[in-house]
């Protein structure tokens, strides 16, 4: 079973040289720590930056330089700033090769719910609806089940949707799954996790084809 850091590490293996990537808040942010050696990846922050660098040293903090999570950050050589409309122009036009974000629920048709729980205070969708409606490659990083032990990989999302038919892959503490043709396709098991455990934790249709390898971290 993976921890959050390991989920991020596994997702980092999906990165390809030259890609522009948008990482959401939470586990997705951690992916930046595991970009493989020799791979040139540029991080997009939807508030208006391409080429997000690490957090600053105390003495270099600049209130005018934050990421979409409102954290103070730095730039990299070749970074560029732009306004919010240009930022979502590049997102909407599919120029960002990969979006990684968290979710409350994902279903077998690739629908995702991650912005609203009826009856609870709604904070807003931020840029999530634009991102999931635009990117061709969307990986969801989340726990396989919620705190009550219920599956978050469903036949049909029960919460208000953020986007439809958009999630391409899900990486959880238990498994790596591809979402296609109306089902979750099991690609890899977390170390020490059995196919049966994954099956049990997955409410949506799960396709298990052949021997499922254990993921390498």
């Amino acid at each position, binding site marked *: 079973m993976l921890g959050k850091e390991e989920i991020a590490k596994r997702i980092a293996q999906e990165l390809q040289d030259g890609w522009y990537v948008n990482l959401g808040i939470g586990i997705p942010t951690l992916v930046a720590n595991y970009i493989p050696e020799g791979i040139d990846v540029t991080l997009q*922050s*939807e*508030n*208006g*930056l391409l080429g997000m660098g*690490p*957090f*600053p*040293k*105390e003495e270099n*903090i*600049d*209130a*005018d*330089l*934050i*990421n*979409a*999570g*409102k*954290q*103070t*950050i730095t*730039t990299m050589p070749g970074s560029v*700033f*732009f*306004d*919010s*409309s240009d*930022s*979502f122009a590049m*997102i*909407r036009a599919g120029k960002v090769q990969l979006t990684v974000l968290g979710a409350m629920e994902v279903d077998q048709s690739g*629908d995702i719910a991650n912005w609203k729980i009826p009856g609870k*205070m*709604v*904070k*807003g*969708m*931020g*840029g*999530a*609806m*634009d991102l999931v*409606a*635009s990117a061709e490659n969307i990986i969801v990083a989340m726990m396989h089940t919620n705190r009550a032990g219920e599956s978050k990989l469903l036949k049909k999302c029960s919460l*208000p*949707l*953020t*986007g*439809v*038919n958009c999630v391409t892959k899900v990486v959880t503490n238990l498994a790596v799954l591809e979402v296609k043709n109306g089902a979750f396709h099991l690609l890899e098991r977390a170390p020490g996790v059995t196919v049966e455990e994954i099956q049990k934790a997955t409410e949506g249709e799960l396709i298990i084809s052949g021997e499922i390898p254990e993921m390498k971290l």
Partner: protein
Amino acid sequence: MEHQPTLELVQEVELIGHNKKHKMKKVVKNAEEAIAGIESGMTLMLGGFGLCGIPEKCIETLSKKPKITDLTCISNNAGVDDFGLGLLLKNHQIKKMISSYVGENAEFERQMLSGELEVELTPQGTLAEKCRAGGAGIPAFFTPAGYGTEIAEGKETREYKGKMYILEESLVSDYSIVKAWKGDTKGNLIFKATARNFNPVMAMAGTITIAEVEHLVEPGELDPNEIHTPGIFVHRIFEGKNYEKRIEQKTISK
């Protein structure tokens, strides 16, 4: 015909009055003068992302005029309890917020749940594009964001090249209030780093656009190639003093 080669080449164009007696008519003294004319019931756009790049001087000054109420505020976020738009919320000056993400703010939550405050949540990219469209004379456009979600309810949808889109209408404001790093007396603006965010598109969409800047300079001091917002979009400008620039999440590398 705009591009037909003319036969009458103007041999000496002297733009009389252009260089002389520059009047700096856009320049106002301070936030107090800048916000003159803002009335109850108006729609304001306010630049910024979180607390980054917000027009803090104008917001603060507005909060000192509690009789201005029933405002509709278009802003990506809603400030925090004691800074930014939180100040106007506390005074009950805001009737409605149009934002993509709100609620770092307990008072906001209280007013929303009690029904005092109306909130229209809009996807961030759609919000940016609605402002840009409003400032570009485009009344409506198709976007994929929110298709299949409750955001699309009641909106026209259409398929282009196999993908579904929803029709969104543009936004304009009575007053847009933006914050820039540098500006000149003709209203040209340069923003700094990610404090740019929504400021340029909101500047475009203001019936009257107010810019508060950290450094106000004379025309010619800004490189014409480096200006983010052309002065034609800006109607009033002033230099603010002692910016607080509060940081929401100070994160550092060890």
